[in-house]
C-alpha cells in the first residue's frame, strides 16, 4: 500500500521548459512534505520542503504547490536546465513520528538541450 503516489514515472522536458511532478497522499496526519533530488550514483539530497500551513513555497527556480483539501502537492521546475536531469522523490512525514519519511516511487527527469 503506497501512502504517497507520485507521477509521472519519467518526464522529458526541453531546456527552458517547465517540469511538473505530482504527488498525492491519503494520511491527513502528514505535516511535512519534502522533495529530494538524486543524481546517479549519489544519495538523495533535500531540494525544497513545505508544511501544510502554506499553499506555495518558492526557492529559486523550484516551487512546491500544496493543496490540502485535495491532498496533493507538486514540484514545478521553471526554466529547466540539463543540470536538473535527475530523479526526484516526493515524501511525507508525521509530526512527532521520529521524522520517518514515506517516499513516492520517484520521477526520472531528463532535460534535453
Amino acid at each position, binding site marked *: 500500500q503506497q501512502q504517497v503516489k507520485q507521477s509521472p514515472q519519467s518526464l522529458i522536458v526541453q531546456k527552458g521548459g517547465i517540469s511538473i511532478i505530482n504527488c498525492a497522499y491519503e494520511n491527513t496526519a502528514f505535516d511535512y512534505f519534502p522533495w529530494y533530488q538524486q543524481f546517479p550514483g549519489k544519495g*538523495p539530497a533535500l531540494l525544497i520542503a513545505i508544511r501544510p500551513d502554506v499553499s506555495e513555497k518558492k526557492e529559486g527556480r523550484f516551487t512546491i504547490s500544496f493543496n490540502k483539501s485535495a491532498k496533493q502537492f507538486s514540484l514545478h521546475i521553471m526554466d529547466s536546465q540539463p543540470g536538473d536531469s535527475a530523479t526526484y522523490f516526493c515524501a511525507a512525514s508525521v509530526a512527532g513520528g521520529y*521524522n520517518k519519511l514515506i517516499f513516492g516511487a520517484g520521477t526520472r527527469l531528463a532535460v534535453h538541450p
Partner: protein
Amino acid sequence: NAGVTQTPKFRVLKTGQSMTLLCAQDMNHEYMYWYRQDPGMGLRLIHYSVGEGTTAKGEVPDGYNVSRLKKQNFLLGLESAAPSQTSVYFCASTLTAGTSTYEQYFGPGTRLTVT
C-alpha cells in the same frame, strides 16, 4: 565534515552469506535511518534509531537487524542474504528537537547484489 559515510560502496554476496553495512555520521545527529531503494518503489525504511542503544522497525524490516552502540554509528546486518535483498541501501541521519521535522542527510549508498 564528512557528513554521512557508508561502507562498503559495493558488495556481492552469495545466498545465505552474512554481512554488515556500516553507517557513520559526524554531525552529532540523534536520529539515524536505513532505507533500501528499488526501481519503481522509491526508498523504503528498514529500521531506524532515535538514540544510542535504541532501534525500531520500519516498513520493511524482515531479514535485517541493526545496532546503534555509538551515537555516530548505525549498523545494518543481513544474517542470511537472499536474492530479494539485492538493492541499494542508504543510511540517513537527522537533527531533532522536540516534534519538529528536520532535513534528513543521506549517505552515498551501498550497492548490494545477492546471487
